[in-house]
């Protein structure tokens, strides 16, 4: 169990200081080109490592293994730890793409504004530096634009139907949530025509998605939804044979990723706790 619990919050609920701290952490990470840096962690998902877990896979001789949720929890945890080394106490906020605010404004202003004050907004884009793979440019996104009309962002009711999937149905829950996650990816990336050529946003493909700074907050929302489902159905509500499986390349098992309190974070919610009138430390 971690000594300290850090709260992850909705990006729209960050105070000015919290948002500044979050931006500062990303800025410091983006400047680093070693194994503490933004590009290092983004590179686990697609180019160049392609370690991400999506859909059912075979693992340890078991077919149909769904480790999409625990793998991405481990991924966010490691990235957040790296950010905290640079900016103590910082956490990744979630992007609640269900909210009417998201539907209206598409992307939270914290990510969509090109500038933050007088400086470029560090959350708007990131420079991908892989000339050997033909990726030597800034990330881009065209949210909600596509070849055909895009449907709107998912309503709270749609997501509630997924959260209502009962216990003992982890695989069904994981598949349903992963499908919505995929929609958010392609909606955020979008497509457009530039100089007569079709181009798509980087969130739309596995190869480049994690380089877009909004990736982490999208996955923070996914992780939060899993945690809500876990709290309702049991924190260890997952097929037994998944628990000992390792989540490469993070060197942890699925079991170690189930309880987020052990990982030292929680999600801000409606629970309110006030101090009582006694502390054990004062007990002589």
């Amino acid at each position, binding site marked *: 169990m971690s000594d300290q619990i850090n709260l992850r919050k909705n990006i729209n609920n960050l105070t000015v200081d919290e948002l500044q701290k979050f931006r500062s952490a990303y800025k410091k990470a983006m400047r680093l080109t070693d194994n503490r840096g933004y590009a290092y962690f983004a590179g686990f998902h697609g180019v160049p490592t392609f370690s991400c877990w999506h859909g059912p896979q*075979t693992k340890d001789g078991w077919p149909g293994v769904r480790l999409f949720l625990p793998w991405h929890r481990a991924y966010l945890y490691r990235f957040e730890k790296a950010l905290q080394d640079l900016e103590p106490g910082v956490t990744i906020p979630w992007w609640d793409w269900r909210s009417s605010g998201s539907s209206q404004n598409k992307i939270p202003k914290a990510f969509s504004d090109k500038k933050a004050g007088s400086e470029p907004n560090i959350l708007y884009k990131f420079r991908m530096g892989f000339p050997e793979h033909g990726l030597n440019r800034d990330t881009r996104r065209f949210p909600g634009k596509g070849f055909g009309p895009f449907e709107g962002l998912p309503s709270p009711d749609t997501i509630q139907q997924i959260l209502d999937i009962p216990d003992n149905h982890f695989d069904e829950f994981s598949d349903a949530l992963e499908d919505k996650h995929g929609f958010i*990816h392609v909606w955020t990336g979008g497509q457009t025509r530039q100089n007569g050529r079709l181009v798509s946003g980087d969130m739309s493909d596995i190869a480049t998605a994690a380089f877009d700074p909004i990736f982490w907050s999208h996955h923070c929302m996914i992780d939060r939804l899993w945690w809500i489902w876990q709290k309702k159905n049991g924190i260890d509500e997952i097929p037994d044979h998944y628990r000992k499986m390792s989540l490469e390349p993070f060197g942890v098992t699925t079991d170690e990723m189930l309880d987020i309190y052990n990982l030292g974070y929680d999600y801000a919610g409606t629970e309110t706790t006030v101090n009582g009138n006694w502390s054990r430390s004062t007990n002589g």
Partner: protein
Amino acid sequence: MAKVPKVFKTEIALSLKDTKNIAKTTLEFHGINHSGPSYEARIFLNNKNANEKTAKTEKNGYAGSFYIFGHGGKCYGGPGHCRIPPKDIADPYDNRRSHPLTPTFRYVTITKQLQKIAKKANKISVTVVPIPRSYNEMADFENLLQFEKLSLIIYDK
């Protein structure tokens, strides 16, 4: 300009006597190739003429969509990097996961639609319309939608 993705069409026989006994029905897509660009697969029932312009309405037989978050259709590795092994080996001592491009699985729940259709017909037509959601010049858009098997699963109460 990319070619228009091919639409998948098929018919599945129904042998239902009592539609009231249906608890849940799903259309399950097995062995989906996700090495290409991301796309939306729109499923229409009893509408063989559905295409990318068909509105997603109940009247048009629209039953739901699934989304494939694809690898892009462009290999970033060396020769053989994206070659999918023919079959995973069930070796308990080999703790590597399967190849990242191992074909995936999706399902769409069609309970209400099937209950309605099964009252009048003994077969159901399924049309799957792929809509590209990402683009690169090297990808094979004509064959965007590829899967090994489609199952209609009816769960009794």
